[in-house]
C-alpha cells in the first residue's frame, strides 16, 4: 500500500482538500472519504453511468477516474445540483414526469442530462437519447426520463425567451 496523497480540488463550487490512496477511484473518494454518497456504484467499469459526475464541464464516470486525478479539477456532483432557492429544473421535471422508480440511476441521469443541456440547450429527442446512452436504467424503459429532459429543455428555453 503506497502512502496517501493530498489532493486539492473544487467540489460543487467549494475548495476541497482530501487524502486518498493512489488506488482509490474518485467514486470511492466521493462516497467513502467525503460522504458524498449521492453518486452510486453500479458496475465500477464505466458501463452503467450511475456514478456520473461533471468534471470541468464534461460528464464522466467517476469510477473510471482516480481520486488523485481530481487535482486542480472542478467537479460537480448530484449533491450540488439543487440550489438553496429550490430544485434544478431537471430535478423538478424528473419528479413531475415520474422519471424514476427505484431511483438508483437517477443521480447519474441528472448529471448527464445537465451536462447535455449546459452545452446544447435545445436538444432533439435523438440527441437526448444519444447523450443518455451511457446511463442504464432498468426500471423505466427510459420513456419518462426522455420526456422529463425534453420538458426541462423546453422550460429552460422558455425562461430564456421570456
Amino acid at each position, binding site marked *: 500500500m503506497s502512502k496517501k496523497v493530498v489532493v486539492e480540488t473544487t467540489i460543487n463550487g467549494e475548495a476541497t482538500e482530501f487524502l486518498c490512496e493512489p488506488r482509490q477511484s474518485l467514486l470511492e473518494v466521493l462516497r467513502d472519504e467525503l460522504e458524498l454518497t449521492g453518486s452510486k456504484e453500479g458496475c465500477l467499469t464505466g458501463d452503467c453511468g450511475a456514478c456520473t459526475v461533471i468534471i470541468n464541464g464534461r460528464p464522466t464516470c467517476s469510477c473510471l477516474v482516480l481520486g488523485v486525478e481530481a487535482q486542480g479539477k472542478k467537479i460537480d456532483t448530484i449533491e450540488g445540483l439543487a440550489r438553496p432557492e429550490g430544485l434544478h429544473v431537471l430535478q423538478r421535471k424528473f419528479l413531475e414526469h415520474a422519471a424514476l422508480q427505484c431511483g*438508483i440511476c437517477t443521480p447519474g441521469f441528472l448529471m448527464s442530462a445537465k451536462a447535455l443541456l449546459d452545452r446544447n440547450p435545445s436538444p432533439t429527442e435523438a440527441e437526448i437519447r444519444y447523450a443518455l446512452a451511457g446511463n442504464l436504467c432498468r426500471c423505466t424503459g427510459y420513456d419518462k426520463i426522455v420526456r422529463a429532459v425534453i420538458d426541462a429543455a423546453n422550460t429552460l428555453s422558455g425562461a430564456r425567451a421570456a
Partner: protein
Amino acid sequence: MSDRNESNGEFRVVGTRPIRHDGEDKVTGRAKYGADYNLPGMLHGKVLRSPHVHALIKSINTAKALRHPGVHAVITGADFPEVKGAMAQVGELVVNTHYLSLNVMARDKVLYDGHAVAAVAAVSKHVAEEALELIEVEYEPLPPVMTAEEAMRDDAPVLLPELRQMFMKSRVDPGVPEGPDRPSNIAGHIQLQRGDLEAGFAAADFIVEREFRTAAVHQGYIEPQNALAVWDASDHVVIYCSTQGSFNVRTLTAAVLTMPEGRIRVVPAEIGGGFGGKTTVYLEPLAVLLAKKTGRPVKMSMTRNEVLRATGPTSGTMFRVKIGADRTGKITAAQVWMAYEAGAFPGSPFAPGAMTTLGPYHIENLLIDTFDVVVNRPKVAAYRAPGAPASAFACECVINELAEKCGIDPIEFRLRNAARQGSPQPAGPPFKKIGFIETLEAMRESRHYRSELIGANRGRGVASGFWFNGGLQSSADVNIHLDGTVSVVTGSVDIGGSRASMAMIAAEVLGVDVKDVRPLVADTDAIGHNDVTGGSRVTLATGMAVYHAAHDALRQLKLRAAQLWDCDPQEVDFARGVFTRRGKQTPPLTIKDLGARLISTGGPVVGRASLNAGAVGAVGNAFATACVDVEVDPETGKVQILRASITQDVGRAIHPSYVEGQMQGGLVQGIGWALNEEYFYDQRGILRNTGLLDYRMPTCLDLPMIETTIVEVPNPDHPLGIRGVGEVNIVPPMAAIAEAIYQAVGVRVTELPINPPRLLNALRASSRSTANQLASAAAD
C-alpha cells in the same frame, strides 16, 4: 402530466398524479441505499469465490490471510452450522433452507463459477481483496453440466448425490419418488392435465409443433447486493440492507445461522432495483458471522462481476409445444413439455411457468409436464413473473403460427379462445372476473395496432401473457397526528413509488390532502409482518392493509367526534375529510380539528390493519397484450424496435404515472430478453460476460417511446379493485418480437436471444433452403 383525476369521478385522490413523497430525496442524492450506510469502527467484508464450475474442496488454508495486516477475520464453510433440509414458504417463495445454506457458503463442494468459499473482514475493501488472494484452496475438479438437456441424461454427472426425481402435485408438495431410485439432476416434475388430448388433436384441422429454448438472463438491477451487520453484546444483530423483503431476510438469515428470528432486526434501506433478485439472502449471513467474530460492524457489497456470477439469474429453458386448432380458430388441444434450469440447487420457477402458460386461453384438452433441473450455474432467483416469460414465449409463438394457418388476425384468434370469468386456469381452478378480453380489445383499438406499417424488412407482432399477482401478508399503521396530518407506516419496501400509492389510498379514505400524508417504510421490529415487495402484491395487499387501517382510524375519529358532541357515534357522518352531526346544525369538525383535541379526548389515534390478502394466484389475476414493430437489417441480423405498445389490466390505477412506468419497464426488459441478454458460458462452464458491457441491457438509444393503455377491470377481491401491476408486462414481449421478425423477413426463430448472429444464421439457412427448393424445382 396533468392534475386531472383519471378515475372518472369515482375517487378524489386515486387516479391523480401527485409528486411522490420520497422523490426529492432521490433526485438530490440524499436517499440512503444499502451501500450508503457507514458506521464508526466499521470493517469491510469481501467474498472469495470459486474459479471452478464443479469441484470438490479438498482443503482451505486461511493462515496467510489472517496474518495479513488489517485483516480481522476469515470465515469458511466450517464456520456455518449444518441446516437440516426443510421447505419453508417465505412469502411467494418456496425455500429449501438446507440448500440455501449451501448456496450462501460452499462446504465440501462448489457447484458453479462464483460459488462462495470464504469471506474476509478487514479495515478496507482493498485490504480485504488482498487477503482473498492469500487464501489457499485446493480443488478437485469434476465434470460440469451446463444445460437442462445435458443434466437430464441418464449418464450425466450428478450435482447433488442425495437428490431423487420427485413427482409433485404442486411446488410446495414434497412429492413422491418417480423413476429408478438413483441420484438424479431432476429435482421435480409436475403435471397439469385435463380433458382428452387425443380427441382434441383429432378434432384439429391445423397442428403446430415446435421446440423452443431461452437463455438464462439476469434481472439487471443497477444496485449490487449489500449488507451491513452490527452484532451487539447481548447477541442481537441489526442488518441494514437493500432487499425486497426485510422480513424474508430475517427469516432466511435466522435459518442459515440457526439463530432465533427474534434476535435479528432488519432495517430496509432504499433499494436500487430488484425485479425478484433481492428476495433471498447472499451477503447477509456472511456479514452477520463476520460481525459476530470481529465485534465490529461489517459492511459488504458485491461487485457487478459477483452479481452476475453468484446471484440468481432466471432459468435457461427448453420447451416442446404442440397446439391444435380447428378451421374456425378454436384451440382443440395443447401439449407442452418444459424444463427449467434451477442452477446448482432445486427451485426453478418450473411450476409457475406451467401454471401461467396458455393461461389466457380457454382450452378443454391440455397436458403440461414441467421439470426442475439442477445444473452447474448459480441458483436461480425470482425474476419478474418468474417462469412465465419463457413459457409464454414458447406457447405464444405457436399461437401466432396457428392464427396464421387459420388465416385469422392474431388478436381475433386470441379473442375467439380468450379465458373469461369461469374459464379453467391451467392449474384447474376457474378464473374470477378477469380482463384479458379487455386488453385485447384495447390493443385492437389502439392507434398503434390500427396504424399501417410500411417498408421493407419491417414487421409487426402481438402476443399476450398471464400472471397470478399475489396477496399474502401485509400490515399497516395509520397515525393521526396532533396537527391533523397523517403518517402511514408499512413494512413493504418501496421499489418503484409505492409510498405514493400508500399515501394516496390513506388520503382517499380520510379525505385529506395527499401532501398531508407521510408514508414510511419501517423495520422488522417496528411494524407487523409484511411479505416481500414482489408478486405484484404491494399496491394490492399492502394497499388493502392501508385501506383498512385508514378506515380503522376513521372509526376511532368518529368516536372522538361523538364524544365531543356528546352523541351516539351512529349520528356522526363523514365525507371528504369533514365530520358532521346528522340532522343537527352543530359546526362540523375536520380531521385537523379532531387532531388538536386528541389529547383531551383519550390520546393518540392509530388505525391498524394486518391481513393475509390471499394465496398467490387466488387474487388479482392480471393479463397484458403487447404489440411491437421491428425492422430487420438483413446484412447484419440486427433488429431495431420501431414502435412498441402494451395494454394491461391493472384493476385500478392508483397513480397512473407509476402504473405506466411499470408497463414500460417490463416491456423493455422483455425487449432485452428477446434480442440481446444472455448468460454466455464457455466450454469449461466459466461465465464470460461478467460486466454490463457484455451483458448488454437496452439503453435509451435502442428504444422508441413506449405506448401504454391502462385497462381497469376491478379486482372483485379488493375494496379498491386493485390487481397489482409489476409483472405481467414482461410476459408477452418476446413472442411479439419473434412474430414481428417473422413478419419482416419470413423466418421463425425459436431460440432466445434473437441476436444478430442467430438471426443472420436463420436468414442464411432460410435462403439456402429456398435456393435448394428453387434448384430442385428447376431440376424437375
